């Protein structure tokens, strides 16, 4: 249990090693996290998402620097895609966060999004808990806002910031269901470019359709020039204060925990199938049978579920 004690004392090598071990589903690390779970939950978790090239890493870098002025310890988890063909990845978010590398109050960790049986959201969620116990008061999770697994990652936060940029598409993009709906705060980055006001207006119009209690603010920022960062962080803090009123915060955390639990159950069932030679073979056989119309997918799935229950 040496690793556990070192983590509790804020040892960064222990934190780093535990994150790797949890990524690799190491049983020793899983045991440690069972023991330490009750010590987590103190950090405020901020998700940053948006399309590729929106400036999420640069924006995260500036937000972290802003938070650091208060002296609070910060963790950053940056998720980049993994090649589905080789399992390899180039994780490049650190390029925009170079200055943070020498700040002892900041811990930045890059993660590849796929190649994890059981989903990346489980690995990032473990990393959040580890950095939380390590002593981070704020944790930023940054990822590209495409695909369900990435949406799941940021959904698992206390405040989600949706980053947009001008010139990506017409207003119909903004009203498409899905990713845009998860933003608690919107940032229009590269706001010195043509069309920024229009982008902000389109987001506002989309928000007009929503009747939720919380009206997400839309903030203009130019992350590279550190413009609008203070205002954006103030909006995040506003959302935080709003969530703290009448138990909304715990309701959201319970909702996140519910998603996490169901994801874990799902991935455990899949693992039980694929880590068992005979059952894994049956999966392949049924897949072929479904393809050749020998059996329908509903029946096949039911058979597989029965085999692990």
């Amino acid at each position, binding site marked *: 249990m040496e690793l556990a004690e070192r983590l509790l004392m804020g040892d*960064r*090598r222990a934190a*780093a*090693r535990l*994150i*790797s071990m949890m*990524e*690799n589903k*190491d049983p020793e690390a899983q045991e440690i996290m069972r023991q330490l779970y009750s010590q987590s939950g103190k950090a405020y978790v901020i998700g940053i998402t948006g399309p590729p090239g929106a400036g999420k890493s640069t924006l995260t870098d500036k937000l972290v620097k802003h938070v650091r002025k208060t002296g609070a310890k910060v963790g950053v988890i940056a998720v980049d895609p*993994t*090649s589905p063909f*080789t*399992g*390899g*990845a*180039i*994780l*490049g978010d*650190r*390029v*925009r966060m*170079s200055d943070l*590398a*020498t700040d002892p109050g900041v*811990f*930045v*960790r*890059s993660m*590849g999004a796929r*190649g994890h049986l059981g989903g990346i959201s489980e690995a990032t969620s473990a990393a959040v808990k580890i950095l939380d116990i390590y002593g981070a008061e704020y944790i930023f999770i940054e990822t590209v806002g495409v695909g369900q697994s990435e949406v799941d990652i940021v959904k698992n936060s206390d405040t989600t910031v949706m980053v947009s940029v001008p010139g990506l598409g017409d207003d119909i993009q903004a009203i498409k269901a899905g990713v845009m709906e998860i933003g608690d705060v919107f940032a229009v980055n590269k706001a010195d470019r043509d069309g920024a006001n229009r982008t902000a207006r389109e987001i506002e119009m989309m928000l007009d359709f929503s009747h939720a209690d919380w009206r997400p603010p839309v903030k203009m920022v130019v992350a590279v020039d550190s413009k609008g960062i203070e205002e954006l962080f103030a909006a995040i803090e506003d959302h935080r204060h709003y969530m703290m009123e009448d138990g909304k915060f715990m309701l959201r955390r319970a909702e996140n925990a519910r998603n996490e639990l169901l994801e874990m159950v799902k991935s455990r069932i899949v693992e039980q199938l694929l880590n068992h030679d005979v059952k894994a073979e049956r999966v392949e056989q049924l897949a072929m049978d479904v393809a050749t119309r020998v059996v329908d997918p509903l029946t096949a799935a039911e058979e597989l579920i029965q085999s692990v229950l």
Partner: protein
Amino acid sequence: MDRPIRVLVSKPGLDGHDRGAKVIARALRDAGMEVIYTGLRQTPEQITNAAIQEDVDCVAVSILSGAHGTLIPKIAELLRKEGADDVLLVAGGVIPQEDIPFLKEHGVAEVFTPGTPTDVTIQFIRNNIKR
């Protein structure tokens, strides 16, 4: 345990040419490794801190500026100080043959000079990581 090898690819010093580093990063990625790329003009402190936070198996530095004799041993020293001397340190770039023994005495496992096939680097990393 089946896990991807994690490699930090970094550019210490002041030269602004990272084509070589990017070619290596891409080759390692295609070999199934997780490559953390730090970008240009990194100090040995930045590289060491990144290596520790990212819990990498290998630090690969690319350097073309001629400052390899000071910067690379410095990275090895900082890694040692942090107790991270189980991280494999390799170097590439424009490094004269006569400088290589000195680097190897100072914590560098291997030096890959221009023209080295990427497969050689990949195999070396696979065979020499320490955990």
